[in-house]
C-alpha cells in the first residue's frame, strides 16, 4: 500500500515516500515557555505552539483572515535579527514539531520536522557515524528550521559548504495554510523548482518551514587544529599563503586575539578534518610552509578539542562572546576573500572593543562590540566598512543592535539591484504579508 499524507485541509494525496516516524526517545522534553514574547520591543505577542501541521495551517489561515502577522519562532536564539515587526499578531513556536520522520542512514539522508534542535539532530546522526557538517550557534536550543531560515553557518563552511548545499527536500506551510513540498529524499533531483534554495535564508518570510530532508556526511576519521598568530601588516600575506597552501583546510577561522593568548594581534585557527594520514600530512606540510612566513607563533593545538573550539568560535561569531559577555552591536559582512585582511584590519582600527571573527578564506566576517557605543558610532563604522565591502561586491548587515537604532541603520545592508525582485517575490508569495511582516524588508 502506498503511504498517504494528510494535508491541512484533510485532502488525501499520494505521498511518494516511505514514511516511518521514529518515536521520540523517552526523556524529558525541554520546558516550554508559552508566555508572550516581544520581538524588537514590538508590544507583546502571544505564543501558540501547534502540535501538528494541520493546526499550524489553521493558525496561518487565522492570521491571514484577521490581517495579522505570524512570527515563527524556533529556539528563540536569534529573534532580534532583522527589522522590527510591523503588524500585531502572534508568534508560532515550532518546537513541538520535532520528530525524526525517516533516517535511512545508508542512503545518507535524514528527514526531520523543522522544530528539532540541531543538537538532537546531530545526536541521531552521530549514532550512525554521520553528521551535518554545518556549524550552528547554541545547538541545544537552535532548531534546524531556524538555522535554515537564517542560513546559519560557521567555520566549516570553507570545507563543507553551507545549508543550501545540504537541504534536498522541504515542506512549509504557505500563506494559504497549506503544507507544500519541493525536492525529495534523493541526493540528486531536478524535478520542479528549487524551493529549498528559496527558503534557505528567507528569514521565515515566505512560510513556516515544517520539514527538511538533509543530505548528510560521514564523520571524518581524524581532526587537528593548527593555531597561528600574526601582525596586522602580515595578515594579507598569511591568508594568501593559506589560500595557496598544499594543505586543504576545512576551516580557517580568524579572530582578534584574546589578550590572554598574548601573541600577535590576529589569531588564526586552521582546522583539518580527514583521514588520519591525510590530517597528519597536512599539519606537517603547513608547518613547513609557514617557516619563514611572518607569523608570530605556530602551534599544533594538540590539547584542543577541535569540536569544542569550533563551537566556541561559532557561538562567539553569533555574539555569545567568551566570558559571558553579551554583544551590544554586531554585524556580519560578506566580502571578497582577497579583501578579508584589509577589511578586518580597518574594522579593528575603527573601535578599540570590537571583537572580530571571520571565515577568512570565505570572506565572511562578524564583528561584535561589547562596550558602550552610540548609534552614531555604529552608523559611522558601518558606513566605513560597507564602503570597503562594496569595492568587491560585498555588503555589511546588522546582526544585533538596540531596537531604536534599527530605524536609522542599514540592517540588511545596502540594497543591491536584486532587492526589488526580492520584494516582488515576497509580494507574490505572501500578498497579505503574513509571515514575519517587516522583518526582512520593512514595509513591502
Amino acid at each position, binding site marked *: 500500500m502506498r503511504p498517504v499524507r494528510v494535508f491541512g485541509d484533510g485532502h488525501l494525496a*499520494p505521498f*511518494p*515516500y*516511505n514514511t516511518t516516524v521514529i518515536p521520540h526517545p523517552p526523556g524529558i522534553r525541554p520546558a516550554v515557555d508559552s508566555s508572550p514574547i516581544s520581538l524588537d520591543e514590538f508590544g507583546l505577542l502571544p505564543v501558540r505552539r501547534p502540535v501538528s501541521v494541520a493546526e499550524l495551517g489553521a493558525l496561518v489561515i487565522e492570521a491571514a483572515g484577521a490581517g495579522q502577522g505570524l512570527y515563527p519562532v524556533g529556539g528563540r536564539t536569534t529573534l532580534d535579527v532583522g527589522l522590527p515587526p510591523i503588524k500585531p499578531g502572534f508568534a508560532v513556536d515550532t518546537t513541538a514539531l520535532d520528530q525524526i520522520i525517516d533516517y*535511512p542512514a*545508508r*542512503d*545518507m*539522508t535524514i528527514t526531520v520536522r523543522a522544530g528539532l534542535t540541531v543538537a538532537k539532530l546531530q545526536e541521531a546522526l552521530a549514532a550512525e557515524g554521520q553528521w551535518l557538517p554545518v556549524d550552528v550557534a547554541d545547538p541545544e536550543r537552535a532548531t534546524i528550521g531556524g538555522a535554515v531560515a537564517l*542560513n546559519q*553557518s560557521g567555520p566549516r*563552511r570553507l570545507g563543507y559548504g*553551507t545549508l543550501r*548545499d545540504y537541504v534536498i527536500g522541504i515542506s512549509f506551510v*504557505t500563506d494559504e495554510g*497549506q*503544507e*507544500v*513540498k*519541493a525536492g*525529495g*529524499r*534523493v*541526493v*540528486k*533531483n*531536478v*524535478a*520542479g*523548482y*528549487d*524551493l529549498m*534554495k*528559496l527558503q*534557505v*535564508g*528567507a528569514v521565515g518570510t515566505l512560510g513556516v518551514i515544517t520539514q527538511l530532508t538533509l543530505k548528510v*556526511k*560521514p564523520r571524518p576519521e581524524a581532526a587537528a587544529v593548527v593555531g597561528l598568530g600574526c601582525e596586522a601588516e602580515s595578515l594579507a600575506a598569511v591568508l594568501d599563503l593559506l*589560500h595557496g597552501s598544499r*594543505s586543504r583546510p576545512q576551516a580557517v577561522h580568524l579572530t582578534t586575539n584574546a589578550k590572554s593568548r598574548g601573541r600577535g594581534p590576529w589569531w588564526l585557527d586552521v582546522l583539518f578534518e*580527514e*583521514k588520519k594520514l*591525510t590530517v597528519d600530512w*597536512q599539519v606537517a606540510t603547513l608547518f613547513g610552509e609557514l617557516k619563514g612566513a611572518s607569523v608570530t607563533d605556530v602551534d599544533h593545538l594538540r590539547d584542543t578539542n577541535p569540536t569544542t573550539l569550533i563551537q566556541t568560535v561559532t557561538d562567539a561569531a553569533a555574539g555569545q562572546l567568551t566570558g559571558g559577555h553579551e554583544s551590544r552591536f554586531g554585524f556580519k559582512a*560578506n566580502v*571578497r*576573500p582577497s579583501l578579508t585582511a584589509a577589511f578586518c584590519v580597518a574594522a579593528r582600527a575603527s573601535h578599540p572593543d570590537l571583537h572580530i571573527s571571520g571565515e577568512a578564506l*570565505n570572506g*565572511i566576517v562578524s564583528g561584535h562590540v561589547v562596550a558602550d557605543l552610540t548609534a552614531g558610532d555604529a552608523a559611522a563604522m558601518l558606513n566605513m566598512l560597507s564602503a570597503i565591502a562594496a569595492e568587491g*561586491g*560585498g*555588503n555589511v548587515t546588522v546582526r544585533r543592535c538596540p531596537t531604536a537604532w534599527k530605524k536609522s541603520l542599514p540592517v*540588511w545592508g545596502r540594497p543591491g*539591484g*536584486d532587492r526589488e*525582485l526580492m520584494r516582488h*517575490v*515576497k509580494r507574490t*508569495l505572501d500578498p497579505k504579508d503574513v509571515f514575519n511582516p517587516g522583518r526582512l524588508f520593512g514595509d513591502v
Partner: protein
Amino acid sequence: MTTATLSAPAPAVSTAALVARMNAVVGADNVLTAAADLAVYECDGFTIEKHRPDVVVFPTSTEQIAAIVRAANDLGVPFLARGAGTSLAGGCAPIGGGVMIATARMKRILEVNVRDRYAVVEPGVVNVWLTNALKPHGYHYAPDPSSQGACTIGGNVATNSGGPHTLKYGVTVNHILGVEMVLPDGRVVTTGGPCEDNPGYDLTGTIVGSEGTFGIVSKVWVRLTRNPEAYRTLLGVFDSIDDATTAISEIIGAGIVPGALELLDRTMLGAVEAAFKFGFPLDAGAVLIMEVDGLEAGLQAEADRVEAIALRCNAREVRKANTEAERMALWKARKQAFGTIGRLGYPSYCTQDGVVPRTKLPQIMRHIQAVAEKHRVAVANVFHAGDGNIHPILMFDERDPDQVRRVLLASHDILDECINLGGSVTGEHGIGVEKLDFMPKLFAPEDLAFMKRLRAAFNPDGRCSPGKLFPTAGGCAEPSSIARLKPGRRAAV
C-alpha cells in the same frame, strides 16, 4: 491566485514585423528566418516533440537580449533561450513558436580570479572550455556533464546539470555564485556575485534549475574548485549488476566519499568496447568505475579499502588505471558511451533519467531488467551510480509503431518504480516537455500551484519558455502528450 498562461499566446503579428524588429536589434546577419535554417532548431536532444520557432536570433550582449525580449513583449510573442541544444527533456522546444534566443555568440570567459575562486562567463561558454582555460591555474569548474564538450554554462545553469564527479563535488547549483538575467519583461537583474551570502533571498539558487522559465541568463559567476592533488581510478569487474550495485552501497556505507562511481552494464560494455577498444571484459555482468581523489597522503589506503569492498562484494577482478593516460581513456569511454549506442544496431534510442535512494539500486536494476523482458525492449545501462541516478537506454526502431509503444510503456514503468522506491523522475535532465505528466505523480496539486506562483513572480505572462515543467491547467487527468506523439530517430540521445 494568479497563474501564468500555460500555453503560449498565439503570435498576433506577422513574422515579417517580428523579423524587422530582430534585424533592428542584432542585424540581419544574426537572425535566421529561412525554413531550412529554422528546421535545425525545432527540437533539442529530445526529438520526439518538434516545434518550429518563427525566428532564431544570435545576440552578442546583455543589452541585445534585453532589446529582443522587449520587442517580443511588444509584439506579444513567446521567446526562450537555447544554448547547445543538448537538453534531453525538450527544454528548448519553442512551444507556440516565437523567438529563439541562441547564446552561441556569447562565448567569452570574462574574468578568471583564482584568489577569490570565481570566474565570470557569458552563457554560451561551453562547459569544457572553462575547465581547459583553468588548467594552468590548477583549478577547474566542478560540474562535468557527459555532454561537457558541447553543452553551455547557460544551459547547465538552467537545468542544474550534474555529471560523474557531482557525487563528491555537488551539482551546478553548488557552484554558481551569481547570475545576471534578463527578466521576461526586459529588465536586467544581477543576483549574487563574487561574494558569498548575499543578503536576502537566494535568488541565484532559485534561478538555477528553473529550466529557462524565469528569464534569459546573460552572465554567470561560477565558483572554481581546486584540482585534486591525486586520483586512484579503479575498475571493478562484476559478474552481476546486483553485486556491482551492492558494492556501491557498501562503499558509501563505509564512510568513503568517492569522487565518482559509475556503472556500465554488459550491453553497454559491448558498444563502448567496439568503439574504443579499451579492453573491457565483454563477459562481465557490469563494471564499476570507482574513483577516489584528494591529497596523495592517505589516498592509497582509501583506494585499498574500496578495492577490498569490491572484492568482498564478489568483484571477480579490480583493475587500476596506472597512468593519467589510462585514466583519461577510461573517462573518455564513459563520457562518450551514449555516442556508441549506434553500434548495437538499433536505429533509435531513448535515455531515461530517474533517481532512487542508492540502497534501492539493486531493486531498480532488477525492475529495469524485468520491464525490458516484459515489454520486449533492449536496454543498456550506463549511469551515475553513486548518486542513485539511473540512465537506462531503451533501444528500438522508430519505424515500427509497436516498438515505439513498448518503449514508452517501459520508460513510464521504470519511472513509476523510481517514484515508488522514494526517488524522482529526473536527476539532471529536467522536466522540460518530456516529463510533464510525471509532475502530478511527484507533487500534490498545492505543491504545483505554489511553484506556479513562484514562476508568476518572474514570468507573469508566461511568455518566457511557455509549456514547460507543469502540465496544462487542471493537471492530473491530462493524457500523456508524449504517448500521442511519435518518437523520432535517436529520440532523447
